[in-house]
Every structure is written in C-alpha cells, then in structure tokens.
C-alpha cells in the first residue's frame, strides 16, 4: 500500500506548452523522494498536484491508495506542505506561526501551543519565539516554516526547496531533521542541490521540461548512464580522441569525458604521459544529471519572478 503512483499526469497552464507531460511512475512512498530538475522543469507543478493544491489537466495519482484528485479531503488529513517561496507571515511571531498552523490542522489551542514550543526548541529558536517574523533573518523565517510542517502529525511531508537560502550549518541541521523524519514519514522533497539528493534520498526523480528522465534509487539512476567515470580536462580547447564514452563541454568551458572504467584507465595514463592536466572522479549525481539532461543543473538560472513590488 505504501506507494506513490502517477499515471499519465499532464498539466498545461496555458494552451500548447506543457508544464508536465504524461508522467507515469510508481515508487515506494517511504523515506525521502527527491525530485531534481532545472528551473521550470515542473517540480513544483508535480508537487502541487500531489499535494491537492492544483488540478492536473489529465492523469491520476494515488498515494497509499488515496486518489489525490478525487479523495483530496482524505489526502489532506495525511499531508503537510511547505510551498516554494512561502514566507513566514510578517506580523506573527514564530510561536504564533507554528501554533496557528497546528490549529488549522485541527489541534486545540493548548496542545498546539505545547507542540509549537517543542518545535521551536528543536530548531534552537526558543529565544526568538516572541520576536516578530519580520525581524528574523531569511534563514530563520524559513526554519520557522519548516518547523511548522514538521510539528504536524501528518505522515506525509512535502517540502519544495526547503534548504534554499539556509547557511551550511542550518542546512545540515535540516538534513538531520529530515533524516530522522524519514524513518517514520514519507518526504517528498525538491531541490537544486544534487548533493542533498545524493545524501538524503531513497528515491531520486529527474524531471526535465515536464518529462520524466529517470526515477529510482541512486544505484538505479546510475544505470541510466553507461559510464562510471567522469574525466575533466583542465585545458581549454584540448581535443582528445576517445574510444568509448561521450564528451561534453561543461559550464566552466572545460571538456568533460564520461566513460567506462577501462577507457578511463587508458586515458588517464595517456594524459599523465603527455602532461595534460585533468581530474578524474566516479560519476556523481551531478554528472548523471548532466548526462541525462544535457545541461548542468545550475547553468543560466533564469531570473525568476519572486514576486516583485514595483
């Protein structure tokens, strides 16, 4: 029963362009599912459909047997959602933010208050619990919202880029929270940090331009690529003849060769002999992403509209 099943999920906001194009997959709804993809790939759209905030144009999805379109009311008992770009409401304090969210989930005032205190202690913000959100730093505000979601009793958690804007320490604190959480919860996470997906995820899902490019465990994702090693030639414009593998140009302008262990062996001994500067690494999720999507994840980040005032 603990599965997430999508069947031909399609979403077009306007005529013609599809934000999601016939997404079909079935994965265990356990641990952490990390969805990765470039800006505009459709991560948020998928999340909002599964979180009953947005209707798909067509297709169905079920989580633990509950249909997200038809049984939205039932689904909402089970999920808690941190939307992308959500901001802690200015005029409330962290305590009030968490408390009121828990009351929306149905808890009574005193229980919600107690849980809110606990949640704030859990993120080390007890001292700031009565400060207005508007006076907190961006990362602190983010943590307050994450804590609201985690304080809920929902067994399924959706978090859209939760670590964006957090400092490295806060980020690893949040990772620890998620790691603890995933033992008992199903976490649907989107991220631009492939390291995050690699560290946390039990299942990784790659989306590009609304299409599913791969889904599975890291091991399964690795199999999308025929190659095990990635060699970067640290000299611009250097031409290399390769017997096996593929060559691409990275965002830094250096040629990158993805290849088999045998070919990597041959090339590196040749480079050493010819004194060509290079680096060699096993294929990381970043390399795999690059290979599958043919573009680096962070290249040419479009200036996204984060809600301007003027």
């Amino acid at each position, binding site marked *: 029963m603990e599965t997430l099943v999508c069947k031909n999920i399609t979403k077009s906001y306007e005529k013609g362009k599809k934000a999601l194009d016939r997404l079909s997959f079935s994965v265990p709804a356990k641990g952490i599912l990390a969805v990765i993809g470039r800006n505009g790939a459709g991560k948020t759209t998928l999340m909002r459909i599964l979180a009953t905030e947005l209707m798909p144009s067509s297709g169905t999805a079920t989580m633990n047997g509950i249909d997200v379109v038809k049984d*939205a009311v039932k689904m909402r008992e089970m999920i808690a959602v*941190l939307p992308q770009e959500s901001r802690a409401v200015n005029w409330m304090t962290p305590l009030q933010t968490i408390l009121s*969210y828990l009351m929306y989930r149905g808890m*009574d005032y005193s229980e919600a208050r107690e849980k809110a205190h606990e949640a704030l202690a859990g993120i080390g913000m007890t001292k700031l619990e009565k400060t207005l959100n508007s006076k907190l730093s961006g990362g602190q505000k983010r943590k307050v919202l994450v804590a609201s979601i985690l304080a809920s009793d929902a067994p399924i958690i959706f978090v859209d880029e939760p670590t964006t804007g957090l400092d490295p320490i806060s980020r690893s604190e949040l990772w620890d929270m998620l790691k603890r959480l995933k033992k008992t919860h199903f976490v649907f996470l989107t991220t631009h940090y492939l390291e995050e997906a690699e560290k946390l995820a039990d299942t990784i899902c790659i989306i590009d331009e609304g299409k599913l490019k791969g889904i599975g465990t890291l091991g399964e994702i690795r199999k999308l690529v025929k190659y095990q090693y990635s060699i970067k030639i640290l000299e611009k414009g250097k031409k290399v003849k390769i017997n096996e593998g593929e060559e691409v140009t990275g965002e830094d302008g250096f040629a990158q060769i993805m290849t088999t262990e045998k070919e990597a062996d041959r090339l590196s001994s040749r480079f050493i002999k010819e004194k060509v500067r290079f680096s060699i690494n096993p294929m990381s999720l970043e390399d795999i992403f690059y290979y599958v999507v043919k573009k680096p994840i962070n290249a040419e980040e479009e200036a996204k509209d984060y809600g301007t005032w003027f």
Partner: protein
Amino acid sequence: MGRGSNQLIASILVNAIYAMQGYPTWIVNNLLSPISIIILVTFISKGALIGEAIAGALITLFVGTGIMLQADLAHLKNDFKYQDMIVSSPTSAMTYMVGMALSNVIFIIPSLVVILVLAVIYIHASILAFVEVFMVLLLLYLFSVVLGFFLSTFTSDVMQSWSFTGILSLLMTTIAPVYYPITYIPLPYRYAFYLSPTTYAAEIIQNMLGYLPLSTMALALDWIVIIGLSIALFVVAIKKNKWREY
C-alpha cells in the same frame, strides 16, 4: 471544542488577534478615518448631525473591513503563499473563508467600542433600534465581503486590489451620503448617489434611528436593493472561487 472551531479560531488569531498585537497602528488607522468625518460633520452642522455622523462611522467601519477581506486573503495567498499551506491541510475552503470573515469583524472591535460609546451618549434610540441597526450593519458587511471578492476577479495583483479597496471605500463611505441624510443633497444630484449601495443602507439605518422619515415603499426598496445585490454578487463570487487551482 471540535476541530472545526479550532480551525475557525486559527483564522481569527492569524488575521485579527496576532495582526493587532504585531502591528497595533492598524487599529488606530481603522478608527481614525470614521472619527475624522464625525468631527467634520458634527462641527460644520453645529452639532445637529452628530447622531447621523456616528451612524455613518459604523457603516464605514463595516464596509471598510468587508471590502478589505479580499485584499487580506490575496496578500496571504500571493505574498506569503500561506493559503497553499492551508489548502493542503484538513481545513476546508468554507471554514477558512468563514474564519477569515469573522476575523475581519473582530479586527474592528476596538474601533467599534469607541464609536459605540459615542453612539450610546449621543444617539437617543431604543435598544431594539440598535439591534436592528446592527443587523443592517452585518448585512452590509456581508455585502462588502462579496463585493470585494467580485472585484478581486478582475485582478490577481494585491497592490492593485488594495487600490480598489481604497477607491471603493471612498466612493461608498465618504462620497455617498452615509454621514448625513440624503435629503441634504439637492434633488437633481440626489439620483447619482443612489448608485452607491451604502446610500440604501444608510437610509435604512437613519430611518431606524429616527433621523429620516421614509415611506414603507421606499424602505422596502432599500432592503430589496441591498439584499438583491448581495445575492447577485455572491453567486458570481462563488463561481470564481479558486480554492484548488486549475
């Protein structure tokens, strides 16, 4: 208490109690615009219209907070992505909306208390008349709420809907004759002011408090207009309801 009431209270906390605690100047802002017109009308009329002016201030409070609801919701939805957190929670659209509507009535309570104190001192009417007035004010509030929603269907931008709110409250509560009887306006111009729904509500209230004699026919017409408009706008607003997006 049940879950539904916890969810209602959540809206009241978020949008009224915590808002007032966080930014108390809003309370002053709420109170000041009706008070300023009471002062204006009272002194210019040498005290003769003080009762009418106080009744007008009550109308202003309820209409103002009613139209504001839609902008408040849009602010929470678009600028904080707050509504998405609630949509995906066990709180239903109905509970959220009713809670938010209540919160905007509670938000004006401090101002209401001040103006009610003035009303008790300067308006000499029976308790029953006050109760009746209160019913009209509630109806007017609901009307303003749906009017706000109706207008919000023309824009998804909060800044723009705030400007609508400002324009609308000026038109309906300052330009329309709510602080004095419509009979102060010379006849040919009078008809123009009947374009504002608050004119009808003000007539009902002034009549109840004994400031404006009205024929049964005229009074019935006032009620019909207010109730009819509310229902018509309500239907449109319900149709445009976007809880879960498409």
